[in-house]
């Protein structure tokens, strides 16, 4: 089978009693002609790179523009004081999303998931669970298959690039992948994974891609936080039995349609949105005068 629709994967899972992640893994084996061992090894390598992108963070690093860096460390320090509004997991999620997003801006190694700009969302929800001993490596790898299957469907039916569909296509897709991954990890049904994906995408629909000076820094890094937090709330809703009223594939198609209707100024060209605020223009001029 091809990963062309969420409904198709859900039906395949329900029809054969396989979990969602297994359907995605089996499809990968078919498609690339590799063994399960090879595929799992590659996924483990991907996961290790994700984990490293969190662990090797250094709050002293700054990006080439000087705009990005240090916020992950600030969040860590704040969380340690015990005064944060949100609970322990969410504090770690916020700090992790910032760490990975900032590491990316500082030319460190990350995993595009699905893009480099949205690379912080999946590690933000998964790494804290793994570190707290609430998810084994095996569970995480399975969740990553679920996430990649969701991403493949979104990429096929809509898009995952900011230039094509705005930030909703990058952070929105990453958030949907993370929401599905969490439901999968907590033992939710294939159908619940579908609802989590639908809700996550709906909640971020219309988000524009407007990077200051064209750089993957402002507002990209902090949007990784909102993508992660949105994913957690949608996963919890789905696990609680809350359903998306609009079917998941219709939501995905709709996200693609909204993306196509976004003016080109709001699709990674830096000709609109935050990129053309006085601050945005100032940064762009500064970068140009230096090159």
């Amino acid at each position, binding site marked *: 089978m091809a990963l062309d629709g969420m409904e198709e994967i859900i039906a395949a899972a329900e029809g054969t009693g396989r979990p969602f992640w297994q359907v995605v893994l089996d499809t990968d084996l078919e498609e690339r002609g590799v063994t399960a061992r090879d595929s799992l090894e590659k996924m483990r390598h991907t996961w290790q790179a994700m984990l490293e992108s969190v662990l090797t963070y250094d709050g002293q690093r700054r990006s080439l523009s000087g705009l990005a860096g240090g916020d992950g460390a600030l969040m860590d320090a704040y969380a340690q004081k015990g005064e944060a509004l949100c609970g322990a997991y969410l504090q770690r999620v916020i700090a992790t999303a910032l760490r990975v997003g900032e590491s990316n801006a500082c030319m460190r190694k990350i995993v*595009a998931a699905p893009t480099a700009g949205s690379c912080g969302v999946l590690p933000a929800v998964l790494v804290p669970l793994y570190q707290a001993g609430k998810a084994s490596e095996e569970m995480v790898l399975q969740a990553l298959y679920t996430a990649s299957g969701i991403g*493949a469907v979104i990429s096929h039916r809509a898009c*995952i690039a900011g230039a094509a569909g705005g930030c909703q296509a990058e952070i929105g897709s990453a958030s949907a992948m993370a929401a599905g991954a969490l439901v999968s990890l907590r033992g939710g049904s294939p159908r619940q994974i579908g609802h989590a994906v639908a809700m996550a995408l709906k909640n971020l629909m219309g988000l524009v891609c407007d990077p200051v000076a064209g750089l993957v820094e402002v507002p990209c890094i902090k949007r990784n936080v909102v993508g992660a937090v949105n994913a957690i709330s949608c996963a919890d809703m789905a696990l609680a039995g809350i359903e998306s009223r609009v079917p998941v594939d219709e939501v995905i198609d709709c996200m693609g349609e909204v993306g196509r209707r976004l003016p080109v100024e709001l699709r990674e060209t830096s000709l609109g949105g935050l990129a053309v605020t006085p601050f945005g223009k100032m940064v762009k001029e500064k970068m140009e005068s230096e090159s």
Partner: protein
Amino acid sequence: MLDIFDILGPVMVGPSSSHTAGAVRIGRMARALLGCQPVEADIGLHGSFAETGKGHGTDRAIVAGLLGMEPDNLDIPRSFEIARQQGMELCIHPIQLREAHPNTAVLKVRGTNGRAMVLRAVSVGGGRIRVEEIDGTAVHFAGDYHTLVVRHKDIPGELSVLTRELSNAKVNIANMSLNRSRRGGDVLTVFEVDQKIPPVARQLIAEIPGVEGLTYYEKEDA
């Protein structure tokens, strides 16, 4: 269908899959097609590559690729320094092309073997690239497969001899294209293949009468 590891991946040095990882791959492609390390590289950056390339490290990424680094090499930010140590002369500048993709680079490289090549390539997103022109001849391939580019004379039967050699080496052709600038001139035939082409088979192809040169890109193992 898209490979799921194109969704969850590539594992790469940031900040941008198109402006950094794709740029590394363009440099690697130029190095592979040249067949050795360049001693001189003139790198022209067009469109968004020129405008936001500095902040994305596009310039450093292309040079890193020319040095043979893969997109996940943490030395990518230090590539200028490494190139200098290895005696690679660099000239990086903006260019303006007509009707080109915003992420286009034109690389003029000369290798340690004295060979020179001009490559025009595009970073199309997600770290994926497309080669559009080699030495002025339009081509079209992405480096998704092991790729053999053969420059040969425009004579009848040449293609059948080339494909027979690949067949003898048990190499399956996934995609193939002939690109000719004028009748009776040189032809660039591009083979995208499923198996690696062994050095012996490449040597045999290079020795076929009418073949004037060949370059080979082996897809990176991920």
